[in-house]
């Protein structure tokens, strides 16, 4: 029985257009030609997850104590630790402390250094969320509370810009609401997120023959696969009975063009972050590190023990080699310790040896100030590294990859705004009120949309058209979701989403 030909991505889009009754020009998402044009001039989305609840007033919207009528009981900072810049709405609080709540670890952070050079590409937009449940909040941060039939930001970017790349939507942070599939079954299969659980070993799953000793030569393996797919398997009773089962159809499709593209791009090499070492003996198995391996390892030096650095290194390679157009990453909830920090006899755990507290931002339940400071600082460093790497990648038209990229820092929700009078360390709960950080040349830089009431620590909204701050107004999740899509140039025709020009440049 001859194997039926796989549907191409173009076929899928034609089918979707037919099912939806779309007419020519109705939506770029349903027009193969428009998608081909978008793929030729892609935009890239990095979703950097502030898991556990990154509080925007502990980041770029820090409040100086002198600005607040309730400085002792609201989450404010001593004036002397807050750095600001003339004409900029953003601040950075450089802090240090003797412990992280119950963790006896010295810590010191200096986010001002990074914000000083990166704030020109930073926009903060305030919003008020609809859930303080971690998983629900995470999901709604990428769906705008299911604003567009449950499609995620990542799926939409992969749909619009990823028609020509092999794995458009990669999730390097598994097991969170940020990485769940959307609820719209009409999303093309290729735009769905693909989970990568371990950035170090995942590239090994991208070639069926290389790196196995002894294996089969690529030519022999190709012949074996062809014989299996086209001769042996179709003759089995199992295949004949269940040939049209969706899982088998999917499996058959993956063995076709996707497999050829993945192996044809030599991704087992290009995406290999790890160097050739005794512990990871690539050379002994005929493999090698990525040509850009040293560059990403220098940029994210904790790649071998901090999951976020390993994710960030692979995220860049996925974008650089046009494997993906959107990547999702973020700190895990695991305790991460840097054993290379020299022993300090005056401390139980030396300064900055804890690079990720347990539960990441959610460590704020026990130690808000240190937890927020350490994890924000960790995110700033990753943002800084990604911007540097992407800025060095030439798109061939005088622009860099960074000119086409958005780093969206998505958070579960905010944190409560108050503290015991004068407390230097305290615990906070989850709070609906917050804001998002967006780094990108595609958004108005060094710009705050909305504002913060320094007397309460609560953020307020803005006019979606003009961007003018509007105290008393709060921004819905759908509005910020729509604003992000607008900045990314995703065609939202027919979605019913509001237009939010204030969140895009030009």
């Amino acid at each position, binding site marked *: 029985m001859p194997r039926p030909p796989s549907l191409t991505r173009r076929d899928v889009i034609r089918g979707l257009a037919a099912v939806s009754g779309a007419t020519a020009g109705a939506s770029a998402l349903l027009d193969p030609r428009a998608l081909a044009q978008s793929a030729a001039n892609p935009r890239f989305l990095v979703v950097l997850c502030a898991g556990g609840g990154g509080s925007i007033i502990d980041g770029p919207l820090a409040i100086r104590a002198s600005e607040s009528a309730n400085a002792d009981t609201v989450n404010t900072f001593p004036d002397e630790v807050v750095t600001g810049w003339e004409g900029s709405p953003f601040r950075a609080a450089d802090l240090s402390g003797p412990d992280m709540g119950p963790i006896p670890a010295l810590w010191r952070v200096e986010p001002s250094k990074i914000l000083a050079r990166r704030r020109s590409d930073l926009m903060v937009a305030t919003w008020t969320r609809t859930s303080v449940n971690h998983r629900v909040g995470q999901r709604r941060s990428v769906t705008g509370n299911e604003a567009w039939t449950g499609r995620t930001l990542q799926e939409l970017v992969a749909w619009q810009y990823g028609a020509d790349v092999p794995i458009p939507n990669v999730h390097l942070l*598994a097991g969170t609401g940020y990485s769940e599939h959307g609820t719209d079954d009409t999303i093309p299969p290729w735009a769905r997120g693909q989970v990568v659980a371990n950035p170090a*070993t995942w590239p090994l799953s991208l070639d*069926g023959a290389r790196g196995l000793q002894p294996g089969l030569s690529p030519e022999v393996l190709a012949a074996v696969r062809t014989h299996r797919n086209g001769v042996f398997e179709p003759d089995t009773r199992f295949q004949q009975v269940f040939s049209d089962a969706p899982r088998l159809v999917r499996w058959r499709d993956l063995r076709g063009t996707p497999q050829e593209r993945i192996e044809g791009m030599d991704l087992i090499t290009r995406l290999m972050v790890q160097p050739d070492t005794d512990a990871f003996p690539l050379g002994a198995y005929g493999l090698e590190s990525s040509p850009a391996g040293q560059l990403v390892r220098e940029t994210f030096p904790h790649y071998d023990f901090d999951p976020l650095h390993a994710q960030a290194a692979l995220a860049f390679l996925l974008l650089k080699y046009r494997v993906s157009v959107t990547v999702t990453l973020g700190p895990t909830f695991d305790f991460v310790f840097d054993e290379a920090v020299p022993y300090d006899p005056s401390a139980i755990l030396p300064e900055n040896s804890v690079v990720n507290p347990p539960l990441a931002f959610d460590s704020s339940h026990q130690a808000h100030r240190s937890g927020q400071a350490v994890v924000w600082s960790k995110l700033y460093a990753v943002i800084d590294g990604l911007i540097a790497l992407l800025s060095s990648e030439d798109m061939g038209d005088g622009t860099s990859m960074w000119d086409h990229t958005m780093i969206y820092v998505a958070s579960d929700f905010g944190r409560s705004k108050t503290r015991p009078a004068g407390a230097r360390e305290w615990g906070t709960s989850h709070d609906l009120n917050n804001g998002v950080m967006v780094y990108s040349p595609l958004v108005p830089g060094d710009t705050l949309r909305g504002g913060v009431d320094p007397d309460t620590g609560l953020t307020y909204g803005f006019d979606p058209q003009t961007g003018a701050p509007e105290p008393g107004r709060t921004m819905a999740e759908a509005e910020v979701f729509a604003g992000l899509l607008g900045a990314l140039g995703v065609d939202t025709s027919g979605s019913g989403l509001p237009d939010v020009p204030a969140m895009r440049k030009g």
Partner: protein
Amino acid sequence: MRRELLALLLTALLGCGRDHEGEGVSTKLRVQAKSGEVWGRDLANGLGLQPWELCTELGTSDCIEDAHRITLGGVDAAHLGIDEPVDDALVSAPIAVDRVAVSACGERFARDQHGTPVLFGPVLEEDSRKARQEVAENLVRRLLSRQPTHADVDDLLDLHAVLEPVSAKGALVRDWSVGACVVVATSTEALFY
């Protein structure tokens, strides 16, 4: 009209006497994927290996338990928060499956070469069509837990001619043995239920 009715009647009568086996297709199409752990256990049993002997990436990382655990449909609630297998097969899953099978079948062949043969003994003793037929039958019995059909065996025997032009000099016995093993071990019948 009478002629058409007669034709219908004849077809029905002839059909009653025919063996319908082989013609039916499932109407429910309810197929589940084996997790890597289950498939690996079946593969290990079939090849007479322990599960941890099937495949080790770079000599350090167990393919099924560690390196490709999630890709192969496994879970890791403790470390990754993944407490359910992914809904749809991940894009690299078929490649990872091939990788494990090439490694495992190669391991079986190497052990049969240097020790008491379990599976590939007949072709190692004398590479002939009869020996290959014996191996092919055993591959299906051991890896699919059923009796081989004529088509199974013929298809696996035909692989020999397919590999002849692409196999390196002196490598055809191994390439066919490992290749036939991979064909059966990674067929949908072995991977799904």
